[in-house]
Every structure is written in structure tokens, then in C-alpha cells.
């Protein structure tokens, strides 16, 4: 029987009084991969940020439930510890904090158990090998001086190590070359079977490597159309205008 990971009901969200999400509904079951597409400013990243609990966003109406629990009851770090992971579109740069130290602290916090050094190193090495990452990254400062591709790989590395039950990927494919895209997709596919995945993207090309169960289109802060992978192909071919002018788009 399918297990519900995420339920969003009639979600309205504002930033500094400006409405961004205007009645969003979505349900994600464990093992499902959902893709959200839409123009810039449609509210896609806002959705991911709100689920993760960014303090700048205010829920004015509706609710988000994670595994049946209202998310507003949980602070950001509690959401992470409960199994929610957001791969940031623009990950923060943290000078002075080495990647290795950061990963260890993060994994320790989320798993809530002491890490066994050798076992963790083995797991870390395997994950880095899978993502074709150089070990030298571990002694660099978090995202400091990283290229776009390096940042995205580090996000995926964190996702693999944190073993989320809900993975939110906010334009993780943006700015990646073909090889990097393939590697990042490999990471997503590794997590997807045991989690619910919500992928925000502008491009169909990621879906050549990751098979979505559902593709949703967001316009003006709500989902106006949902379908299968064929919807992404149609969007790639025809853009979004047809949704705004059709009754489905309600524009």
C-alpha cells in the first residue's frame, strides 16, 4: 500500500505581503517522482522553500502535511531530521567551514546517532565515487569558490548521505553540462525508490535520465495542469502559452 509522504492543501503563501502561492494542492506518495515546471516567477522555488521552512515565507492559508504531521509544527532543523531534504538552487557559501566537517555534523544531526568513523568514511567515499567527486573537496570550504556543477554535486552528495524520505530538488539541473547532468540524475535515481521526490526544473533534458511519475505545470502560484512525462515533452515543444489561453490554464 502506498505511503503518503507529502500532502499540500489549498496552500497560500506570501512574502512581505505579496502573494506567491495561490491555492496549491499536491500529494506525493513514497516512491513517486513528481516534476514541477513553470515559467520564472511561477512560485516553484517558493514551494520548495516553504516546505523546508524558510522564515521569509508566510503561509496565509492552507496547510502542508509531511507523513500526516502538520509541517508548521516543525522548525527547519526538525524538518531535516524528520527526513526532508532540499537541494538548493543557490546553495549558501560558508567560508571557513570545511566540507568534510560540515557533512559529518549534518549526517550526525539527521541520523541522531554517533557516527562510526570508518563506516562513515566508507559510505562517504562510495557516494563521492558514484558522483565522480574528487576527495579534495572535503577540505575545501562549503561552496566557497565552487563552480555551478560542483555546488550541485555537493548538494546531491548531501542528499545521498542524509537518506531523505522527501527530496526536493530546486533546479538542480540548471547550469550542468551533459556529464554532470547524468551524474546528478544517478544520485536522484538512487534516492527516488525509497523517498518521495519533487523535482523543480525548467528543462525536459533531466527527464531523459530520471523517469517522473507526474509532471505538473505551475502558473501564478498554483498547479494548472498535471500529466505524465509526455507533458514535459509538450512543454518543451510548445512552451506555456497554450496553458494560459486554454480553459485548463484558467487564464
Amino acid at each position, binding site marked *: 500500500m502506498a505511503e503518503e509522504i507529502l500532502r499540500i492543501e489549498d496552500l497560500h503563501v506570501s512574502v512581505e505581503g505579496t502573494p506567491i502561492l495561490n491555492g496549491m494542492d499536491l500529494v506525493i506518495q513514497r516512491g513517486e517522482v513528481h516534476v514541477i515546471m513553470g515559467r520564472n516567477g511561477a512560485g516553484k522555488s517558493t514551494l520548495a522553500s516553504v516546505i523546508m*521552512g524558510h*522564515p521569509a515565507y508566510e503561509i496565509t492559508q492552507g496547510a502542508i502535511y509531511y507523513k500526516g504531521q502538520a509541517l508548521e509544527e516543525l*522548525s527547519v532543523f526538525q*524538518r*531535516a531530521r524528520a527526513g526532508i531534504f532540499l537541494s538548493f538552487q543557490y*546553495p549558501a557559501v560558508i567560508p*571557513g567551514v570545511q566540507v568534510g566537517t560540515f557533512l559529518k555534523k549534518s549526517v550526525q544531526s*539527521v541520523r541522531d546517532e554517533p557516527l562510526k568513523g570508518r563506516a562513515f568514511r566508507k559510505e562517504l567515499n562510495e557516494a563521492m565515487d558514484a558522483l565522480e567527486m574528487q576527495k579534495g573537496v572535503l577540505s575545501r570550504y562549503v561552496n566557497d569558490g565552487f563552480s555551478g556543477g560542483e555546488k550541485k554535486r555537493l548538494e546531491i552528495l*548531501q542528499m545521498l548521505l542524509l537518506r531523505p524520505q522527501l527530496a526536493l530538488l530546486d533546479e538542480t539541473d540548471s547550469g550542468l553540462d551533459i556529464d554532470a547532468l547524468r551524474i546528478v540524475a544517478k544520485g536522484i535515481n538512487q534516492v527516488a525508490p525509497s523517498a518521495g521526490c519533487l523535482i523543480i526544473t525548467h528543462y525536459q533534458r533531466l527527464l531523459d535520465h530520471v523517469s517522473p511519475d507526474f509532471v505538473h505545470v505551475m502558473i501564478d502560484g498554483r498547479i494548472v495542469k498535471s500529466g505524465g512525462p509526455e507533458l514535459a515533452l509538450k512543454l518543451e515543444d510548445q512552451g506555456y502559452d497554450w496553458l494560459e489561453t486554454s480553459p485548463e490554464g484558467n487564464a
Partner: protein
Amino acid sequence: MKYADMAVPSRAQHLWRYTPWARIHPTSVDQVPEAHPVQWKILEGGAFHSGAPRVLTDDDDIGRVFLSELGGSAQTFETSGEHAVVNIQATASGHVAVGHLHLVMKHNVTVLIHLAGEADWAGLHITGEVAANVQCAVGLVNELSSNSKLLHCENWSIGRDASLELASLSIGGFRCKSDVRTVFTAPGSNLIQAISVHGHQQRHIDHHIQIHHLVPHTDSSLHIHAACDDQSHSISTGLLTIAEKANHCDAGQLFKNLLLSEKARAEAIPELEVLADEVSAAHGAASAPVDRDQLHYLMSRGLASDEAIALLIEGFMQDGFSNLKQEALIHEMRTRLTVHLECELKR
């Protein structure tokens, strides 16, 4: 000049604006109290020379003259070339404790100095000469008791084609005044200076850094990072001079303050005096609270707010050492900082 003949410096002077002489003097300003010697011990890497000279530089500076007249202990360490790393322990105890250390750097070496002890007032004067073609590093960790006052002066001269890395980690003492001056005496030389300060409780930490490019083709880089919590106050003033004919110098100063409470204060005042035409000289200063995006990022990875802030403080202070190159120096500074923060931030 004798201390008794010197006027108490005016607060109008850059050097004494934030920590007036009366606030750092151990008793009342007209007195030169009896001083205990700072105990020097080499834990690793050689031995002191006997009959150490008393090196007084900048004899118009009241701090140095005062330290000289207080007496205390004096040691000279000259590198032998046999040791890559030298560890020196300086222990200050009693009401007033004073020590002088002269370093003669003739070989590539890293000298690590740990200042500790329970003295009510500690005076430390380090002088050093870096010989031509030598690449060396000196790190000072101030781990004095939280009840101690510290007056700390340093004077360095760097010879031809030599390189000096100076690092300082300020985590001890409740009121500390540091005045570190470096002079380039020959071309081709290079100075990298890094200071990290942890202001907590009511610590008052004042760093004044002078770097004087008297000759051409000399480079310097100064980073000061001060993380200020509680009611602490950090002051960082710099004076970078490039003399009239000292062309082709490259000098930069960057002061950063991380403000962790509403009552914490920090001043960052770099100052340039550039008289040569063909030079590169830059300075920057920034003070800011904890970055909300960084905090959110760490919390989204499972770190509670206090854990995330602790990691950001550590990262900020570690980043103060990011311009250093010498591995042994970097390792020591980082290790001492991590240990300190693990104890301090878990209280």
C-alpha cells in the same frame, strides 16, 4: 626616553582612542610596579640562548618603554635549522608578569608561542628579525586566564627575499591591547598576517597593526576576523604605509567582524598612507550579524540553531587564517580554535 618622562598618550591618537593607556596600565599610570618574570619554556625544537639581549624598538612608544622598564624575563631564540617546528610556552603568573622574547629567524621554521597563566596583568614583547631568503612563520595563541589584562607588543623586520607569516589567535584575557609592527627592510620580501579574535562575555580586545613598506617590491596581506558575542568589544586598527620610493608593492588589509549579540561592538579601521605611485594597495572592512541564508542552509541540514551558529562562528574565525600558507601554523591555529570553541560554546 624614560617612562616617567613620557606623557600619557591622548585619546586623539589613533592608537589610543579605544583603549586608553590608563585602561591597559596594570596600576595607576604614574607607577612602574614590580614585575614577575614570564616563565619561558621550549616544549619542542631547541633551546634558548643565554644572556638574552633586551631589544627595545620604537622607543617613543609608551607601551614598549613601559614593558622595558618593567623588566621581567628576557629570552632569545635563534633558529638552528635542525627543527621545522618550535613550540614555546610562556606562562604569566602573579600580579604583574612581563616577558620579552627575541626571535632570530635564520632558517625556514614555524615557531608557535602559547601564552597562558593566571597573572592579573601580563606584558609580552616579542621582537624578531627574519634573515634574507628565509621563509618562516610565527603563531601566537593567547590563552590567558579570563581575568587577565594583556599588553602585547611585537616588532618585526623582514630581510631580502624573505617571507614571514604571522598568526594570532586571541581567546584569553578580559582586556587585551596588541600592537604589532612590521618593517620591510629589503626588497623581495613578503608578509602574511592573520588574526582571529573571539570576543565573549565582557572581553575587550584591541589590535593595532602597523605594516611599513619602506622598500620596493614588498608584499603584505593582513586579515583580521573578530567574532563578538555577549558584551564584548573588538577593535582592529591598521596602519599600512608605503614609502615614497617603495614602488611595486602589493598590500592589502581586510577586517571582518561578526556581531553575535545586540550588545557586542566591533570597530574596524584600516588606514593607508601611500606615497609611492606604482603600487597596489587595498583595504576593506565589514561588520555584520550572522548571515540568515547561511544559518538557514545549515539548519536545513539538521543542525539546530545554536549548533548552526556555533559552526558559523568557527568557520568565520577559521576563515581568518585562510591567507596563511604554512601547514604547521594553520594546523595549530585551527586546532586551538576548535578546542576553544568546543569548550566555550557548549557552556
